[in-house]
């Protein structure tokens, strides 16, 4: 009986990539804007953490005297740094306002009341209240982008 088996192909192993999994999950059906918001929240959070280390390191030069501080400020006074500051400001505004939405979902009645799971299965936590805060965070991020653009590049 075993001779009848021509070849046994092992099940193909999917390469595990945690970052890829996160991105795939965010764009996987059913797609909703909240999943994208969580992905952006995480990316902006990690980027802001990297910036925090850089920022604390750079501000350390102020303890070394005026010459060291002026030197590092002149070295960092270029369009690329301004672009970084622009992204930091925009990231802070989105992360902050969207973070308030997440906090309210965790700690307030905004999460919604339980309901019978009837088709088409709408999650109670994805109601209009939290969605409006998400849209507010998007609008505030856009306003912050315009404000930072004029401050840093104009």
């Amino acid at each position: 009986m075993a001779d009848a088996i021509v070849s046994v192909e092992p099940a193909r192993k999917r390469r595990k990539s945690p970052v890829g999994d996160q991105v795939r999950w965010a764009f996987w059906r059913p797609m909703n804007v909240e999943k994208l918001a969580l992905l952006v929240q995480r990316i902006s959070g990690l980027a802001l953490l990297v910036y925090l280390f850089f920022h604390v390191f750079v501000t350390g030069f102020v303890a070394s005297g005026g010459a060291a501080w002026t030197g590092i400020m002149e070295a960092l006074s270029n369009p690329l740094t301004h672009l970084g500051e622009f992204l930091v400001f925009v990231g802070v505004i989105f992360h902050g306002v969207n973070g308030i939405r997440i906090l309210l979902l965790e700690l307030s009645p905004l999460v919604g009341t339980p309901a019978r799971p009837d088709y088409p299965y709408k999650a109670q936590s994805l109601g209009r209240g939290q969605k409006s805060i998400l849209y507010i965070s998007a609008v505030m991020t856009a306003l912050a982008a315009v404000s930072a653009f004029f401050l840093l590049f104009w």
Partner: protein
Amino acid sequence: MRESTLQIVNYVMIAVLFFTVLLHLALHGFFGFVDYEGSLVYSDVVTRYRQTIPAVMLTVLLISAAFHGLYGLRNILLEFRSGPVWDRTVSYGVLVAGIALVGWGMRTIVLTAMGG
């Protein structure tokens, strides 16, 4: 420390961070109250470090940002994998990173406040 305690501390840090970040951005001209380039002049920066309230605010901002950021990083990393070794490695890793970050920031604040 229990996870629930850490989460409560994180909520407190978020609340503190919200106000201190807004103040920090405002002090550096991002809301148009002061000049952005002027806020980075050495004499102005040093003056801020030598005044009690701004120095305390910077300290609180540093600690809350470090805690919130590294706690978030820890949560993300703990979602990727599980197991006691991974848990310990990540937890002690972010603790060491936090001590280094807060230590370096406090060194800057204290040395500048005391005269550089």
